């Protein structure tokens, strides 16, 4: 029992520690593809460290929502981490606290507060970006649901730990058409939810074109650090769900020994590195969509997931 709690806390620590690294690697690789040198892969750590040591300025006109939001954005991915398999393939202590929909709703709660905070200050760019994020969000939500329902339907459960075993036993199940379609839909979802390139340009500095970034413009000091770190962790958590639940649940610790758990850390990082390569290829070969084309992108993801459901249901 204590061991499972310790392992669960280990998962949280791993997510907290390595989330900025993944973002740094992604940024560095993107710059390398553009034949620039790019920042060090540890730059996100330095940014967060620097921001924690700066003074925070909060507008007098803002309400408690503005002050509360960074904590919410920071804590939401941590709660989700308790529910999903990051390092082990057997359920840990908190695994049955909530299913995948609960995880989705916790992440959405963070997004909800971020939206409120962006509107709270009255900065003209904040509400604009926030409403755009909501637009992408509500288009992404049905895809999220349908992907999870397909996966749960196959496994007969909505707990991510149980679901992950269903696609790979036997191994031929991996090539089920509905599995491939679900993977594709979820990849598009990750791109949309994290504001990666076909939907949003994360490295753009033009406020009018921002979707995801402009929500955090008003924050400084500790608030900005928490928002940034929370954003990295959300990305990490979504990649974890994608890799460990949907795509390749191999390389996770299957016994209770501490050595296996430590061995699982480099393996998950390796898997993420491969996925980051794929994301870099996607981001470097596509251009950002115009705002009203995003609904087409999400429509494609939605249809992909619906077809996955249909194929799965009829084949049964």
């Amino acid at each position, binding site marked *: 029992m204590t061991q499972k709690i310790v392992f669960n806390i280990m998962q949280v620590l791993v997510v907290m520690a390595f989330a900025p690294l993944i973002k740094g690697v992604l940024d560095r690789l993107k710059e390398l593809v553009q034949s620039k040198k790019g920042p060090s892969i540890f730059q996100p750590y330095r940014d967060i460290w620097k921001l924690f040591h700066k003074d925070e300025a909060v507008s007098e006109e803002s309400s408690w929502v503005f002050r509360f939001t960074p904590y919410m954005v920071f804590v939401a991915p941590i709660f989700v981490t308790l529910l999903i398999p990051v390092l082990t393939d057997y359920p840990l202590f908190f695994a049955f606290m909530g299913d995948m929909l609960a995880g989705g709703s916790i992440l959405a709660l963070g997004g909800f507060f971020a939206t409120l905070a962006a509107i709270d200050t009255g900065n003209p760019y904040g509400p604009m970006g926030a409403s755009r994020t909501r637009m992408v969000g509500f288009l992404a939500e049905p895809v999220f649901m349908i992907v999870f329902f397909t996966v749960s339907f196959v496994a007969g459960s909505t707990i991510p730990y149980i679901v992950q075993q269903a696609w790979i036993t036997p191994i*031929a*199940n991996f*090539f*089920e*058409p*509905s599995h*491939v*379609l679900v993977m*594709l839909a979820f990849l598009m979802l990750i791109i949309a939810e994290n504001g990666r390139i076909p939907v949003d340009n994360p490295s753009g500095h033009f406020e009018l074109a921002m979707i995801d970034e402009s929500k955090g413009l008003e924050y400084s000091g500790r608030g900005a650090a928490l928002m940034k770190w929370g954003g990295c962790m959300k990305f990490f958590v979504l990649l974890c769900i994608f890799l460990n639940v949907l795509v390749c649940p191999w390389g996770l610790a299957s016994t209770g020994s501490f050595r296996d758990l430590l061995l699982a850390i480099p393996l998950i990082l390796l898997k993420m590195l491969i996925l980051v390569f794929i994301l870099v290829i996607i981001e470097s070969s596509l251009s950002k969509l115009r705002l009203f084309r995003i*609904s*087409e992108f999400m*429509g*494609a993801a*939605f*249809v*992909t997931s*619906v*077809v996955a459901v*249909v*194929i799965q249901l*009829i*084949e049964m």
Partner: protein
Amino acid sequence: MVQLNALAGGLFILTVFGIVGMRQMIGSLRLFVIQSLLLAGSACILGYEYTSVHLFVVAGITIFSKAFLIPWLLYHLLSHEIHARREITQVLTIPTSLLIAAGLVICSYFMVRPLLETGATAFLSVNLPIGVAGLLIGGYAITVRREALPQLLGILTMENGAFLAGVCIAPNLPLMAELAAAFDVLIIALVVGLLTRSIRKRVGTTLVGKMASLKEEE
């Protein structure tokens, strides 16, 4: 093998959606090539399973004519159409089209259900509904797309869908029929390509909706 065939089927249906949802002509054309290759792959798998030489020949014909000859032909006949006009206009918006296409897929699964109940193999239950869906969505693409080349791709998609359903129903179809169908498609592509080219030269556009009135009436 069943799984691989199912995978080919799943990707096939995805490319069919792409034909409806793509905005760029060149992208649609590339998707069509991928679609044809997937069809050939499915035919190869079925040929291996049923030990039928005919299906391998079908795969060969498909690769030769649809993955090389037709795209090459269209590329050269309509290079201006493909490269200069980047966006395809259509009657309905793309999300609406995609939703209707998804509806058509569900519809086709229900349509083939009575056929499958009489004795379905694992291949039949994948290829038949997806082939019918390809047929329906291809027809749908012809009706909503406003320009000649996308409409041609719609016809070709219908043809691919029919083949996908065909290879699993009749693994020993006479070779003559396959050859005839393949050349039919080639001729269609050639004729539509040439026509489009000359229409474009005269009228300056291939938007079908604008061609309601005769030119002399102006």
